[in-house]
């Protein structure tokens, strides 16, 4: 609001000041140009005399120069006599000009600014933001802002659309499902929205692909048949319903289509093995669990991070623990040899935290900070991330 007041007053002042001379009564005729020339020549003559007086110029040289300037002076004087000031523009024309300017300046400014500017966006100086909510690293503040806006404009489909996946990553599944539903209602269906809704519904049901989730995934697939996320969950649904004969090809397809280092790959392969075993199909070599680092995703990285948790919930808890620990160990190995991987460190810290090994998590944080000093952007990022998890890096006692 204040911005518009400032903008409006700026515009008003500027427009008025720009047209002000036009609105004034006519001033006396301005000097003809030849009169200006006269002035310059007179000044030159004066300088000449000054030079001679100081002895900087020999008098005979001065004489020639004086004659030359004198000739120009006479000619300019002639011109000045002959010239007459022109009448200038008519009053009516000037008023028309003033009106055009007074309309065009604000209109043009508003039109250009309207397409380029973001008038509603406040300043976000770092100092002010740091105080807002240190624990959530500002994410919460941003969400709160967005929620506030959506409360006032609940029909802002884009707002819901942006917010929904953030909720999903933050494990606020109820909110995510609501946001997705609103986004679909306001903006129409899209593969990403339907799949997101399905995933949120699955998470609400504790990892079980419910009927609502299933139909959401099916709608998503209808819009985008290649969407891996939806196919993953539909395969999971088949496994959960013990329809292993159908689940096996579905999982195999997921494995075949996923990039080899996809984070959900380990789960999918495990599921293939599981389904193969149950249906009595030969266990394929590729079906062996191939745990890779990155199976446990930080909330910021793309991909269905909750998928692994959902898939893992299908394994017996012992298997799951062993699998996860294997992956974490591998990740730790890799980071030892190549420590310049901020995302990797975040994964590791989070994994230790999930596994209930706070000491290991603290040690990992310290190791990470040896590579990324706390003042570097990555360092800050890691520190904030760890703080959110409650990992402080304290405790120098032992390193696992």
């Amino acid at each position, binding site marked *: 609001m204040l911005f518009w007041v400032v903008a409006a007053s700026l515009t008003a002042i500027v427009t008025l000041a720009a047209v002000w001379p036009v609105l004034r009564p006519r001033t006396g005729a301005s000097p003809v140009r030849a009169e200006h020339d006269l002035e310059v020549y007179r000044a030159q003559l004066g300088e000449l005399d000054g030079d001679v007086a100081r002895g*900087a110029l020999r008098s005979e040289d001065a004489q020639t120069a004086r004659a030359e300037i004198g000739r120009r002076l006479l000619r300019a004087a002639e011109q000045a006599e002959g010239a007459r000031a022109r009448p200038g523009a008519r009053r009516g024309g000037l008023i028309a000009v003033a009106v055009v300017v007074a309309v065009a300046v604000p209109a043009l400014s508003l039109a250009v600014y309207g397409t380029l500017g973001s008038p509603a966006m406040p300043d976000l100086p770092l100092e002010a933001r740091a105080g807002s909510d240190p624990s959530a690293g500002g994410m919460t503040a941003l969400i709160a802002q967005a929620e506030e806006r959506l409360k006032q404009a609940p029909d802002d489909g884009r707002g819901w659309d942006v917010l929904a996946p953030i909720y999903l990553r933050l494990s606020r599944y109820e909110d995510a499902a609501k946001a997705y539903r609103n986004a679909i209602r306001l903006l129409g269906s899209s593969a990403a929205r339907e799949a997101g809704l399905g995933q949120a519904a699955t998470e609400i049901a504790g990892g079980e692909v419910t009927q609502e989730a299933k139909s959401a995934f099916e709608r998503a697939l209808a819009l985008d048949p290649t969407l891996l996320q939806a196919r993953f969950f539909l395969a999971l649904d088949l496994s959960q319903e013990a329809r292993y004969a159908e689940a096996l090809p579905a999982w195999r397809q997921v494995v075949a289509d996923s990039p080899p280092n996809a984070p959900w790959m380990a789960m999918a392969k495990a599921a293939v093995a599981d389904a193969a075993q149950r249906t009595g199909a030969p266990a394929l070599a590729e079906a062996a669990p191939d745990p890779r680092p990155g199976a446990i995703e930080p909330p910021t990285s793309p991909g269905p991070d909750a998928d692994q948790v959902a898939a893992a919930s299908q394994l017996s808890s012992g298997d799951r623990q062993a699998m996860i620990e294997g992956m974490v160990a591998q990740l730790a190995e890799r980071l030892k040899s190549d420590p310049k991987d901020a995302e990797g460190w975040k994964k590791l810290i989070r994994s230790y935290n999930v596994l209930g090994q706070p000491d290991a998590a603290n040690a990992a944080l310290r190791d990470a900070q040896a590579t990324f000093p706390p003042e570097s952007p990555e360092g800050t990022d890691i520190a904030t991330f760890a703080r959110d998890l409650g990992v402080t890096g304290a405790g120098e006692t032992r390193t696992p």
Partner: protein
Amino acid sequence: MIVETGHYALVLALAVALVQSVLPLAGARLGDGRLMQTGTNTAILGFLLLALSFACLVTAHVQSDFSVLNVFENSNSAKPMLYKVTGVWGNHEGSMLLWVLILGLFGALVAGFGRDLPASLKANVLSVQAWITTAFLLFILATSNPFQRLSPAPFEGQDLNPVLQDVGLAIHPPLLYLGYVGFSIAFSFAVAALIDGRIDAAWARWVRPWTLVAWIFLTLGIAMGSYWAYYELGWGGWWFWDPVENASFMPWLSGTALLHSALVMEKRSALKIWTVLLAILTFSLSLLGTFLVRSGVLTSVHAFATDPTRGVFILAILAIFVGGSLALFAFRAAALEAGGLFAPISREGALVLNNLFLTTAAATVLVGTLYPLVLDVLAGTKISVGAPFFNMTFGPLMLPLLAVVPFGPLLAWKRGDLMAAAQRLWAAAGLALVVVIAVLAYTRGGKILAALGIGLAAWLILGSLTDLAGRAGFGRVARGVALRRLAGLPRSAFGTALAHLGLGITLLGIVSVVTFQTELITTMTPGQVVEAGGYAIRYEGTEKRQGPNYSEDAARFTLMRGTDRVDTMESARRLYTARQQPTTEAGIRTELFSQLYIALGDAGANGGATVVRVWWKPLVTLVWLGAVVMALGGIASLSDRRLRVGAPARSRRRALLQPEPAE
């Protein structure tokens, strides 16, 4: 609020520039004083709006407001405050805003101080100035908007390129821009004269001081940039004939020519058409420089813009303004009244010679800079034109010019006496010859070129002093009288002498560093000693340190003369953490005018050893000090009251009755 206000002010400035583009020009056509007056108002308003906009951007940078894309991309909360501020113009968008701000500043100065100009000339000048402003504001808003927002806002920014995190950067671009953009005034005056079809007597008097202002800043800016590259890049060189350097050097050459031809025009009403053309060419070269640097057609340390749409946009601006003004020139130049003639041996003749050499030299630099680009576009052949080309072409063109510089100020206007001038330069020539012989003796005849070069420098320095001494009458009148006369000389006389003196000083520095510099590259282990510049330099070892946004390996050296410890020096390799970018921080020790320069290379495989490059650079600082002296000459000349123009109505009586005493 602040950010958006800045954005809005920028948009409003565009609207104001559009008004300024049309109304004053129409006023000048109709002879209407009120319409012409709008030019003054809008020029000042436009500048205030741009200043507001720029201040808002600076605030956003200072507050680390990462919701502004420009701040996010070029700043970092860990950055020291000074570099947060200088970072505003250390990037493409911000520097373009600074460019336009300076454009607005010059427009406002003409509006504010141009009260005594013929009203229609002033109105035309302001309108032409507004055309340039409009073009660049459109460019900024359409392709390089510094106020673009980012939502959600990140919590940490990327960083300013560490090579650019330097005090030199705080001053170098603004100075350079003040120079580049300052020539826009000369351009606007030239185009205004062409539109009018007449050149007022006040025209030359006005163009010269404005050109002088721009020239002073450009001289300082180039010197600053050269010194910055010298100590920041760690390559030990101070001029690389890099296209970016050439881009600033070409307007300097033609701007220098313009200064001299404007002098002829002011004093003798000759060379009018040529001066107009030169004014157009000088600003065109400035625009070309902006295009080369900003469009990313060159790969260079300075080219931070890589977006092709920007290049095309600036190219269009370049084509419209250069093409348009040259077409206007071709069309209208015949309407301008030609000036008088003069004998070849005269002050005018000398200045024509100066112009001839300077513009030809600028043309060779232009060819060397553009030829690779043109060849790449037309034939797809990739070549590079480097220092050898420029040394081979620019050098031979400059030498004769430098040799005749001392004659110029000694020749009389209209018809000069070469013999008389030669007689007065006798002493200077003799002393310069002594210098040549002395250098030859010192080097045992080994460095003939060095001796000649230093002799030439001495000739320039002594020649400019001879000019001053002659004017004061030393040797002809009593010393006391001469001293009094010296003090009473017009400041423009000092300006000329100082500028030529500075040229000689720079030449002395160049020749001395090129011919007498010693360079040593070696791998050193702690405790090892090398010799340079009369010192024994012992490498003590390297320690790791942490800076606010970098980590560094700092190597320490002890300087010894014989067995006495003289000083310690430090040279470092830095790694800027945010960008993982290494830089070299050379260790430099200045001794009077010479410098010892130590740069670190790779760390050796086994601990402690490192590649070290040591230069002894005799008289190297004279290269830049000379430029400062040149700029001082410009300032002296600018302060000469005779450059000012009186207003007809107010001072007519006084001027008629009593000649205005000039100091």
